[in-house]
């Protein structure tokens, strides 16, 4: 689970800072998806059995494992709740933002 790191994106202040047309070096995310989200998934690490079903079903690939725990990249999570719905142990709950 080698998640690519986002590089820091400097917002343009002059028209010449824009790329020529809509193409740019890969690895930048000018804006995260977090703004779309109404509810966010919260993992109960006590209940989680690491079956990784949430990882498999997440449509945006935001779920990863770090330090022996399931974690969710909230920069990309859009709050759809598929992980919570599919978790066989009900270890993920959707909490209002």
């Amino acid at each position, binding site marked *: 689970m080698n998640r690519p790191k986002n590089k820091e994106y400097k917002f*343009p202040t002059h*028209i010449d800072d*824009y*790329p*020529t*047309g*809509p*193409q*740019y*070096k*890969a*690895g*930048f995310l000018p*804006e995260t998806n977090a703004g779309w989200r109404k509810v966010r998934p919260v993992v109960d690490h006590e209940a989680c059995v690491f079956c990784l079903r949430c990882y498999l079903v997440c449509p945006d690939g935001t779920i990863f494992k770090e330090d022996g725990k399931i974690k969710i990249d909230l920069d990309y999570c859009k709050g759809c709740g598929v992980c919570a719905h599919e978790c066989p142990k009900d270890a993920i709950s959707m909490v209002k933002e």
Partner: protein
Amino acid sequence: MKTNKIFISGDEAAAYGVKLCRPHVIAAYPITPQTITVERLSEMVEKGEMDGEYMHVESEHSAISVCMGASSVGARTFTASSSQGLLYMAEGLHYASGGRYPIVMMNANRSVALPWSIYGDHRDSLSLLDCGWIQVYVEDAQEALDMMIQAYRIAEHKDVLTPMMVNLDGFILTHTYELVEIPDQQKVDEFLPAFVTPNKMSFEEPKNLAFSSKPDDNTEFKYQQNQAVLKSIDVIKEVDQEFEATFGRKYHDMVEEYRCEDAEVVLVAIGSVCGTVRVVVDKLREEGMKVGLLKIRFMRPFPEQEVKDLAKRVKAIGVIDKDISFGYEGTVYTNVNSAISKVENYVYKSNFIGGLGGRDITKAEIEDMFHKLYAGLDKSREEKVEFFSLNVETNE
């Protein structure tokens, strides 16, 4: 100087011009009257006379898509179309200009259905004036060939990076034969450097290509695109000068004035009809009338400055349009009129609509236009948009 002249059609001249530019990828769908161009190019690829790939596609929509993909990885690309085919490409035309892919296209100007017609007028390309492409209209086969070479220089310029459409009149130019000089390949290679784009996608430099933009950025991208097309005016002039120095032929940049120095009354036109207007201008000049022709070469970017410069010196301007924007005027006239409105002096204006669906525009009709413009000067004729070649009486 030794020259290499051969007797070929306008379509073939375009194909020879493209061959000399060594495109990496050609993707086109055949359509009358463009067919011969793509047939010749596919033969050249088949016989190994060209190194490029000729990609067979099932439609014009696919042709432009192939060109965009190839262009994004740094390939020089060519496509060609006409009429219904060009319109089927329309979605991709905006995409290509917004993506800043400097694709070069030959368009054989042809009428648009219905009624179905394979013959020429300018309604296909003029209806796509706003798609962000540079548009040039040529007068003969030599200019068609030469503009293919100039087109790559203009489109691929780092400050322009905008696709370019080279328009030649269907049948009148595409299917008539002329003696055309084929430039030396080595000279073309020197004139036309390799295509370099800052947007080139590669394994070493992965890119996020053709992304979306929100209201926060969309206006900036469109501003940038408009600046690039405006910037092409300087590049067009620079390229034409260098072309003359290299090949000995020049096309007078954005427009060509013919006998306009002391003219009182001028006709404005695009494309092959300019040749006929020249003949009429010569005849009327012999009769003592101070008439001239303004051949508009580029419709985008528009030669606003050149039209204004002319409008300051003349008393009447007529515009021939092989086009009608239904419910208003011919599109060339609308654009010319906008430029004229920016000068202080009054100029009598009229729009002559004709030559639609392949009807010839005759010398007698052009002579009549000049007389009508003179009639406007003594107030015996009002300014108007007139279909000049109707064969029947109307209710007007």
